[in-house]
């Protein structure tokens, strides 16, 4: 394959799938630390496995989101994104990822939760993001009227960069010497970062729905923009719900609480309106993308419901600092973000050379395997969390170690469910990557092959 034939979107998506696979392996290994005493303690240990898991899956989400934007732009913009810039961006990510894993293997930490690596490796990530933004605006500025998903992509990209840099304010002693302010900023960052990639991923979901349903108007509707602004408002101001117990200023906590409550209206509406307009023919041609979007839809229901309850301080006081929070994080990143990203991979990777249709029983089994094991995983974490929450609030407490021992059965279910999740998603990743290698890397003719029932850029009038 020559450089001319390189498809930037697919390059990012394929790379993100590799990160997903690696992240799942690391997650499964890390989860064993909860069940087996002294497991790998003297060698790599949980202290390295956890960040390896977290960083890999974060990179799956972030690189996947980047791949979705590049793939989407191929369809919506006459001015194509620059391949040279995209390749530079990709190379910067490669440098960062190699550095970050080296940092974890050698236990040179120094960063904060979710970004535990030596902070030097944040520099190539920032560089990659600047290149990405430049490439994005270079090709979108010619478009006069933006559908809502373009706004969502842009918002996600800008806020990711801002927040990622804000994430390193602790480097300045001014912030570190004021512990409570420092913690407040740390969780402001964590809340908004998640909000940023959610903008990109939900934007992608919107884009895919547009394609599947063929309904171009939805992306310009007042309702869609209303929902977008509500999402943005939450990205900016709802993060106070992470730190209700932190002795920070009261307005931060009330702001977090009040703004979070506006989310009750967010998502149900959009999903409802597009699903009814999808015909059977369209479902047939976009079988797996549709299924994965549908699954994400179901997970939104569980997770948004849970998140909203957890945002009420009177309930949060029980769930805060427990595995309910982990359940929420896993439910949203796997159930919602990953399902949408997988839908996008199936949509963008299908073509003449590989079509993923209903007849593919292996894929269907893997699809259901992932949903069922994720459900068991989610329930086990919630159960463990509730039990810990009750312990946490009890006036007379058994020792911490004893309490953790009593959670052992839940952790066993959690580890087993995690293993099945690993198997199921590995099948999906394998099928997608095989198609990438066969169709993109080997077969020259298939490059840019039209998708079934696809809407090519020439048919899109924006």
């Amino acid at each position, binding site marked *: 394959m020559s450089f001319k034939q390189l498809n930037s979107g697919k390059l990012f998506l394929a790379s993100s799938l590799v990160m997903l696979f690696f992240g799942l392996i690391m997650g499964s290994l890390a989860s064993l630390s909860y069940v087996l005493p002294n497991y790998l303690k003297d060698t790599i240990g949980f202290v390295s496995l956890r960040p390896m898991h977290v960083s890999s899956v974060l990179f799956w989400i972030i690189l996947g989101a980047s791949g979705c934007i590049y793939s989407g732009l191929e369809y919506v913009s006459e001015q194509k994104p620059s391949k040279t810039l995209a390749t530079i961006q990709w190379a910067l990510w490669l440098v960062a990822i190699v550095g970050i894993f080296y940092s974890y293997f050698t236990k040179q930490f120094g*960063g904060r939760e979710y970004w535990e690596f030596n902070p030097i490796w944040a520099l190539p990530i920032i560089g990659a993001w600047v290149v990405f933004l430049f490439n994005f605006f270079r090709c979108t500025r010619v478009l006069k009227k933006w559908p809502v998903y373009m706004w969502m992509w842009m918002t996600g990209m800008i806020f990711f960069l801002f927040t990622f840099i804000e994430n390193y304010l602790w480097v300045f002693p001014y912030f*570190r010497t004021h512990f409570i302010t420092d913690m407040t900023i740390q969780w402001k960052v964590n809340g908004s970062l998640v909000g940023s990639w959610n903008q990109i991923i939900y934007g992608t979901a919107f884009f895919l729905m547009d394609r599947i349903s063929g309904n171009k108007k939805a992306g310009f509707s*007042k309702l869609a923009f209303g929902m977008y*602004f509500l999402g943005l408002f939450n990205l900016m101001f709802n993060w106070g719900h992470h730190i209700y117990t932190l002795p920070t200023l009261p307005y931060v906590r009330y702001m977090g609480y009040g703004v979070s409550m506006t989310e009750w209206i967010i998502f149900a509406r959009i999903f409802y309106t597009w699903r009814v307009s999808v015909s059977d023919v369209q479902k047939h041609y976009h079988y797996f993308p549709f299924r994965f979007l549908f699954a994400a839809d179901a997970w939104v229901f569980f997770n948004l419901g849970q998140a909203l309850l957890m945002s009420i301080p009177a309930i949060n006081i029980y769930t805060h600092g427990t595995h309910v929070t982990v359940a929420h994080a896993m439910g949203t990143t796997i159930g919602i973000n990953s399902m949408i990203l997988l839908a996008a991979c199936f949509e963008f990777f299908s073509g003449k050379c590989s079509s993923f249709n209903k007849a593919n029983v292996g894929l269907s089994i893997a699809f259901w395997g992932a949903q069922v094991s994720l459900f068991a995983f989610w329930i086990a974490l919630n159960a463990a969390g509730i039990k810990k929450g009750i312990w946490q609030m009890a006036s007379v407490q058994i020792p911490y170690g004893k309490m953790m021992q009593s959670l052992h059965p839940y952790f066993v279910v959690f580890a087993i469910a995690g293993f099945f999740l690993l198997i199921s998603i590995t099948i999906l990743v394998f099928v997608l990557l095989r198609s990438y290698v066969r169709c993109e890397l080997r077969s020259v003719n298939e490059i840019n092959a039209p998708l079934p029932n696809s809407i090519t850029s020439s048919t899109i009038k924006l």
Partner: protein
Amino acid sequence: MKIKVKLIFALLCVAFVIYSLSIYLVPIRKHLNSAPNATLASKGRLVWQDYNCESCHQLYGLGGYMGPDLTNIYSCKGKGPIYIKALVKSGTGLMPPFHLTEEEETNLLHFLRSTDESGSADPRNFTINALGMIEKK
């Protein structure tokens, strides 16, 4: 419509910048003095990060969930600095031993002292008000 979208976006961004600045400037606005030995504590924060204690421990309920919350371990009855030092050196069933230099140890203890002095992370110390918000007892 396009103008309106741009306008709303711009207004929200301005509000966000103001809100962010108001948070960065809390120590100045409220004339907060940094805690005694704040420089050492802030170095201790880096020790906490260098050894990734956060992967298993929480501060104010935030962090990893394998080990207990350590916000107030410094003043906890029967625990405190000597206990912390010993535990970090020896490790436990799930916690590996850590080999800190003397300076790192001192700074880490200053850090844990500063977290302890900043407030209480025990959820039992809160009551729920009429709005569903929690308040320190």
